[in-house]
């Protein structure tokens, strides 16, 4: 029954997105997901809702920032030839598989009071978690977009030039041609961000206030805590929510991006 409701949500989200912030949608969503299971749930709804909110806030912010950074980089690298280009591409591809705990460790040292960004007091905050997820998502989004951009046929770009287009026009045409690949890139980045645990655990500290409000606890780190305490049922419920969220986001983006029709 859960599935049916969630599915119709996907269909009506399009118009809702632009008008209302979807914090409301989140509480709705968590209500839908947790209500049938509430019998076994030892927590107030506030706990689950705030965890979902932290997870989405951190991952979406990181992916949004990463996309803004990655697309120009991918275009630049894709369109220009320069010495050492292959090295840059190799570095980007290596970054795709970079272990998240190492990223967490590096970001921790950067934001720690002793580190270069220490004065900003970012350790154990969502902002630090966004930083580490930005680092994790960027190579994925850049790498996959780069592949998409470079696979656009040169003929398309030549045609745009021939029609008197500026470099910007050519870039826009290329992005349009490569849009499926770019959407895939963003989704891959989001998948990497929202499902990773290593870095957010280290830099975020997995904090929940005494009243059950999550400060830096995400779905992944919450699952770890519940498993540690032997509450496997709760861990599974949170796991199901995480998978459902990823599916939902993929559904929304694919629906709005129109890739469904491309198949």
């Amino acid at each position: 029954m859960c599935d049916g409701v969630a599915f119709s949500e996907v269909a009506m989200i399009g118009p809702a997105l632009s008008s209302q912030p979807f914090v409301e949608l989140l509480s709705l969503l968590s209500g839908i997901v947790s209500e049938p299971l509430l019998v076994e749930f030892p927590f107030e709804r506030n706990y689950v809702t705030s965890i979902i909110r932290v997870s989405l806030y951190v991952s979406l912010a990181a992916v949004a920032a990463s996309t803004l950074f990655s697309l120009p980089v991918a275009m630049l690298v894709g369109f220009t030839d320069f010495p050492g280009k292959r090295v840059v591409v190799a570095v980007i591809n290596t970054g795709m598989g970079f272990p998240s705990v190492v990223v967490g460790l590096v970001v921790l040292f950067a934001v720690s009071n002793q580190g270069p960004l220490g004065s900003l007091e970012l350790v154990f905050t969502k902002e630090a978690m966004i930083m580490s997820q930005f680092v994790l998502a960027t190579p994925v989004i850049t790498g996959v977009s780069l592949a998409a951009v470079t696979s656009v046929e040169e003929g398309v770009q030549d045609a745009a030039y021939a029609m008197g287009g500026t470099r910007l026009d050519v870039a826009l045409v290329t992005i349009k041609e490569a849009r499926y690949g770019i959407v895939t890139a963003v989704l891959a980045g989001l998948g990497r961000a929202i499902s990773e645990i290593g870095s957010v655990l280290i830099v975020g500290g997995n904090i929940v206030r005494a009243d059950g409000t999550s400060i830096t606890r995400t779905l992944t780190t919450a699952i770890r805590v519940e498993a540690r305490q032997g509450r496997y049922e709760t861990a599974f419920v949170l796991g199901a929510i995480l998978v459902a969220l990823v599916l939902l986001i993929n559904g929304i983006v694919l629906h709005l991006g129109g890739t469904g029709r491309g198949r």
Partner: protein
Amino acid sequence: MAIHRRKFLGATAGAVAATMAGCMGNDGENGDGNGGGDGDGDGAGAEIVGETLTLTTTTSTYDTGLLDEVNAAFEDRYGVAVDAVAQGTGAALETARSGDSDVVMVHARSLEDEFLEEGYGVNRRDLMFNDFVVVGPEDDPAGIDGMESATEAFQTIADTGSTFVSRGDNSGTHTKELAIWEAAGTEPGGNWYREIGAGMGDTLNQASESGAYTLADRGTFISMQDDVDLGIRVQGPIEGGPELLANPYGVIAVNPAVHSNAKYDLAMSYIGFLTSPEGQDIIENFTVDDKQLFFPEALSEDPNFQQYVPEGWSSDGSE
């Protein structure tokens, strides 16, 4: 195609809006990150209202649920939020060393003493105690059930090569376990000894799954005993076991002379609250399955100077 792109942009705008909404929502409800002492003063007038105290502590205080109880009471009384990071004693002290927390609540006197001697911590207080217990599977392959001595039990586990799961994470419990091996004159190692580098809950789960022995703090064990197939084999001092298994907790403020960003006044308020009759009452009355998990020890009419200094320290010796 143009329509599709507009839809896509709409989605992006929606995502940005959601991001910003999330951001504003957070600022509204926890009010941290403003750094200043202005707070939001909901008519309370006090300057500290809305500030955040960062506590690094052990997994045992969090996993038992005690931390939520005392922190909720503290937050009510002072209007200050507590960000508790449950890490294990070694990591909790290390985080405080780099100035990333304001106060620590831990349970390994030797590590606490190092922390004090290096100048990172000030104003240590004894807070509470419980004890460690040696737990193991019901069929008790090593035959240690009911032993009066922890060292003898450990020795027997090693001699029979029965599986033993070690925290292996430089926590208070791990420190105690290593001290017991040392007292037993045994160097643990070999196939039967598994260091898993995890918290108490994970360790109990793994010991339960693999029919192994482990050392656990009584609090976490009681709060989890319904979920694991393990029983107490050697009791701690609370139930008449050896004094070696005592588990005292201390609370220490981070030295504001070393880390000027440490919220020392809040840390001292927190320590003051925990060691006050009210705070000690909460600890005393905290139960899981009708069992008291922690025993307050901050209140005493007789002076107890050793709680303020590294163990065995005296001013004569240092001069």
